[in-house]
């Protein structure tokens, strides 16, 4: 009992939680505009959105792959939803289902091509990203769709105090991913494929199918993030997702997800996202050049990978520490 408490205190999620607390305290003390209801609401909204992007990347990275087409998928899904609203006036449920299905399909294509060709998913998704972006531009002619339904916009703006209601989507996604990786065969299979592909194959895991499903989930989540972005900026712009790659990877690496696969961290990733968004928020309220965000995200990513590498060198880490804070001692 005592031992598991100790290891919980040393766990990734807990350390990150402390970092977040420190950041919150510092900002509250030194920046008068930080601890304001509206600012915290904006911060939470940004966290909710960035978390879904990070999760979309995490699911594929868990298999040992990656998805460079994340942003392109989010953009094309968003644009398809915008098109269905502006041009065809379809009922909202149809629009949403079609958009999410389009995202899932794009993810499925990524997975299918990766598995069938045996080519590095980096190259496959680099190529499909270009194809998806090309399609987005072909549909929009580089002009956004502004005909977003009022119901969507008011839903996106709904808030109670500091809590943005669209964040419910993120909470639901996090819970579902928790269920997936804890209790479902597919989740365990994804981690098995990422942890040791050959061993997974030998023990009868349908590796190809698992990879395709992980990509499909990734595409689906990219579409969810595309929908949230569209609702937020009140337009389906072709530039949705342009800047999802670096922060997505930075958040999951900070959260302790292993790039070579086999390990996810649903809770810790939220803290990783929070750290990144706190920095962005601090820069924004102090009116500092927004390009610092890119610089700092890149630096944090590098620091996180190097720290992770050092930690791994110093102790032989158990691979499947997916339960975040609570149970990590037990699984190692």
């Amino acid at each position: 009992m005592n031992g598991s408490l100790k290891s919980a205190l040393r766990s990734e999620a807990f350390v990150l939680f402390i970092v977040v607390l420190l950041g919150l305290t510092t900002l509250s003390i030194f920046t008068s505009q930080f601890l304001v209801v509206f600012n915290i609401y904006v911060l939470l909204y940004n966290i909710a959105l960035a978390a879904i992007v990070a999760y979309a990347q995490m699911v594929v990275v868990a298999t040992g792959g990656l998805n460079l087409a994340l942003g392109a998928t989010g953009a094309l899904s968003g644009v398809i939803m915008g098109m269905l609203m502006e041009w065809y006036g379809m009922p909202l449920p149809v629009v949403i289902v079609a958009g999410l299905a389009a995202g899932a399909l794009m993810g499925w294509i990524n997975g299918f091509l990766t598995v069938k060709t045996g080519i590095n998913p980096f190259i496959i998704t680099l190529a499909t990203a270009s194809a998806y972006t090309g399609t987005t531009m072909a549909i929009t002619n580089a002009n956004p769709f502004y005909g977003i339904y009022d119901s969507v916009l008011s839903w996106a703006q709904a808030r109670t105090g500091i809590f943005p209601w669209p964040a419910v989507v993120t909470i639901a996604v996090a819970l579902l991913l928790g269920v997936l990786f804890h209790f479902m065969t597919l989740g365990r299979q994804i981690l098995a494929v990422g942890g040791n592909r050959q061993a997974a194959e030998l023990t009868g895991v349908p590796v190809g199918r698992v990879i395709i499903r992980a990509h499909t989930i990734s595409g689906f989540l990219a579409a969810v993030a595309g929908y949230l972005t569209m609702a937020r900026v009140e337009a389906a712009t072709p530039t949705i997702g342009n800047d999802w790659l670096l922060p997505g990877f930075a958040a999951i690496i900070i959260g302790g997800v292993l790039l070579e696969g086999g390990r996810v961290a649903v809770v810790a990733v939220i803290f990783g996202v929070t750290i990144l968004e706190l920095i962005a928020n601090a820069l924004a309220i102090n009116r500092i050049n927004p390009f610092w965000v890119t610089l700092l995200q890149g630096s944090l990513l590098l620091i996180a990978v190097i720290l992770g590498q050092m930690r791994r060198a110093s102790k032989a880490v158990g691979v499947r520490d997916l339960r975040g804070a609570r149970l990590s001692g037990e699984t190692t």
Partner: protein
Amino acid sequence: MGANRARLITIWDRAGLAVVVLGSWLLFGAFADGFTSQFNIYSVGRLVSILVVVGLSQMVVLAIGDFNLSVGAIGGVVAMFLGWLIEQWGIPWPLAIPLSVLFGMLLGAVNGLLIVKSRLTGFIVTLGTAGVMSGTMFILTKVEAFRDLPSSFLDFGKTKYFGLFSPLVILMLLLVVGLFYMYKGTTLGRQTLATGANRRAAEISGISTDRIVIISHAISGALAGTAGVMLVLRIGSAIPSIGTAGGGDWLLPSFAVAAIGGTLLTGGVVNVPGALFGGLLLGTIENGLTLLNIPSFWVQLISGLVLLVAVVLDRARAVTVERSRMGVMA
């Protein structure tokens, strides 16, 4: 069957790509007005030269089985560095250009050093450094272009030899020849390919693979920087969005040019003249479609598809080269 297939692929390697490029010339020559005009040949030459050098900058790290996601960032940073040297410091451009390329080489060497020290893949390291490099550049330049470059510099960028060829073409050809010689005729080149084919084996046979990784990334940085300089020469000003717009404008072409040319993505095999043809193909398609008034997004879509086709062929080739490593990130 294996031998047949190997022969087929060898034939494709030697002639297939040239046939495809010729075919595209015939096609656009017949249907696109002005494709064969002197001015168009001149501008295709400039476009292709930059594409080829961008592709070479990726090829030299693919040779060791690594990636460089920061080629666009380095190109942009070096372009701005060049503008800064000339405008802010008044350094004569014939001196500023080699200094800028050297700076690109330094940035590449930093990538290599970080990769070697951290024992991480080039993918994640260069994703991080790309953010740091372009972020720093945006902050320092305040996203303002250097537009007052000296007229002798601009004239040099607009030089035409025989009314057809730009100095950029000559520079690109020199780089192609130089790299071809490096991989075929020097110890460094052979050691690089050995490192890419099988790092452990290379290490056991006494090659300092860490050194090779750093050198390859330094060359990649120098080439990306050269491409940045070439782009400044082509457009006549140093603008911050060179190479980086939209999260990596150069990323797709860099891989496409190298892969179309027959460079293996798994390392150990490069094809330097192939990159020349890869650049010719992409440049021709881009130019031809523009002349046909086909919107530029089709170029992007088609580039993606061309890359897909190229890597599938690459895969077939890799199988025959009998180096079936897993297609997952190493």
